[in-house]
């Protein structure tokens, strides 16, 4: 038996050398509330520190690129609605523009405006979902109620026009779908937007703007949320670009890149709006960019409602849609980022190949980089701030 004073001395020495903990592999998901669906992360952890995170995806792979090779163009619109279900309507736009450009169709201006209004409503619905779910993941449940209440009104507007809340399937090649009952026998009564839609939309946008102020008060003044997001998960702009991160996530890193300003797939050039850009690229900035985008979208919708011209809804298209030989890539600013379709047509009713470029796929390919050497609780904060949808990742 050693002398107690020697024992004491030995235990002091043991504490003085750094504690070595064995590495552990932590499996997060595929069924985990913070993964927004079926994403699995295999992380190595050293105590509370995480390193070498490997995302495992594919649990929802539905093979849309393959199925597109055996579907007619109008049938594909139904499929691509389901790629990213939080903003199903916006998915359709770049594909339609691609097909219309190969066919040389001139889409009537009114149809373009209806598409623009619905796309921006979809963006509101997607960003409001983020405004509700992200604070919830960080432990604040009140913003969810505020955000979802407003989102419900936005979905009601979309439903009023299209008849669907999530998968409207409202676009047609060459325009938008005429309202029910607007057949040849009722030519004089053709009605595209429901009665009172423009007025209702204006009111709803006022409410969205006031709710965005409430959300800002609720979250920007919350010390816990600020502590969990400020300076966490910083994404440098050059890394974001090299990985193909787009949308609000890229703009939060200080890159002023918004396809609504840089491309001409919808008449955004006739509206006055600003892009939201912040400098740091942390979780807080990604939240802030989306809040500003809600305000800008609401302002854009109000302008579009004031400016919407009258006129036809459909270009002249044959009953059987045959797309001439051609190859085109069209991309659009989806709520989640750049969504694009590389369509190769060899003539005929089905495309030869459709490459679907979805925003969330690139946005979460950054995860192994951004989740390196962070604390375990920050995984949830960082993943939530990237705002991805697994259907958009797996296609």
């Amino acid at each position: 038996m050693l002398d107690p004073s020697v024992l004491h001395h030995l235990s002091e020495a043991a504490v003085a050398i750094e504690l070595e903990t064995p590495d552990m592999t932590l499996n997060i998901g595929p069924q985990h509330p913070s993964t927004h669906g079926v994403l699995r992360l295999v992380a190595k952890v050293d105590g509370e520190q995480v390193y070498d995170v490997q995302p495992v995806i594919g649990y929802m792979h539905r093979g849309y690129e393959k199925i597109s090779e055996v579907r007619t163009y109008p049938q594909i619109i139904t499929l691509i609605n389901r790629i990213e279900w939080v903003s199903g309507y916006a998915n359709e736009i770049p594909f339609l523009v691609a097909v219309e450009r190969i066919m040389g169709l001139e889409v009537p201006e009114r149809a373009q405006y209806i598409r623009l209004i619905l796309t921006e409503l979809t963006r509101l619905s997607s960003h409001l979902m983020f405004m509700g779910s992200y604070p919830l993941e960080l432990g604040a449940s009140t913003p969810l109620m505020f955000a979802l209440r407003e989102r419900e009104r936005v979905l009601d507007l979309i439903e009023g026009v299209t008849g669907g809340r999530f998968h409207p399937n409202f676009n047609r090649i060459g325009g938008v779908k005429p309202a029910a009952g607007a057949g040849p026998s009722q030519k004089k009564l053709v009605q595209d937007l429901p009665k009172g839609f423009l007025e209702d939309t204006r009111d709803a946008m006022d409410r969205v703007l006031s709710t965005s102020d409430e959300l800002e008060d609720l979250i920007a003044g919350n010390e816990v949320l600020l502590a969990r997001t400020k300076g966490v998960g910083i994404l440098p702009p050059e890394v974001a670009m090299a990985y193909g991160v787009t949308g609000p996530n890229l703009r939060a890193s200080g890159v002023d890149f918004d396809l609504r300003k840089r491309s001409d797939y919808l008449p955004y050039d006739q509206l006055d709006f600003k892009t939201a850009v912040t400098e740091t690229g942390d979780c807080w900035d990604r939240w802030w960019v989306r809040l500003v985008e809600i305000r800008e979208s609401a302002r854009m919708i109000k302008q579009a409602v004031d400016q919407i011209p009258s006129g036809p809804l459909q270009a002249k298209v044959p009953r059987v849609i045959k797309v001439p030989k051609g190859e085109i890539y069209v991309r659009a600013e989806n709520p989640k980022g750049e969504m694009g379709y590389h369509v190769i047509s060899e003539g005929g009713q089905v495309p030869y190949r459709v490459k679907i470029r979805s925003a969330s796929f690139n946005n979460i390919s950054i995860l192994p980089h951004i989740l390196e050497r962070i604390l375990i609780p920050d995984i949830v904060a960082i993943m939530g701030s990237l705002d991805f949808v697994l259907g958009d990742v797996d296609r």
Partner: protein
Amino acid sequence: MTNSRLESIEDFAASVAEAVGATSHSSDLGTVKVKVERERWVEAVTAARDIALLPLFSWLSAVDWTNDVAVGDPPAEEVEERYEVMCAVSNVTDGQIVVLSTDLPKDDASIDSVVGVYPGANWHEREAAEMFEIDFIGHPNLIKLYLTSDFVGHPLKKSYALISREVKPWPGTVDVEDMPESASSDAPSFENPDA
């Protein structure tokens, strides 16, 4: 698109083609496509990033060009059997995007990986590898991405048939058929037979 915009796209295509040392380039339908040689793939992609100043990686994928297809329609004209690998990169100033493209012979479907140039290509190359059986030489982790590790076959090849098509001919023809002339004779009756 206006004519001036199309002209500026043509100028842009020519400048990128010069920067990456392309064999040919096109800007049909406003899509800038630049063809490079397979041996110079990594060099060309690096030049696109550094000389043509296109820092934003968009996507990378492939096309299976073949005249003998198990699904869908074959090409309109006879094509050379090959895989076409495409990589789209964009600038962040005026929203121009370039599709770099190169051809691989079917019997030697391998190409150098561009993960070192654009790290975002990592998952895209894994997807193209499992879908088309293309070997990306130098890729750090070329395992399956979407498919399970024991999956047999390469689904996006044109020779890979869809089982649903074997069971039922493709449904598009039903949609575009003419309406039956005498629908009344074959159609089920909704009248109450007891009345």
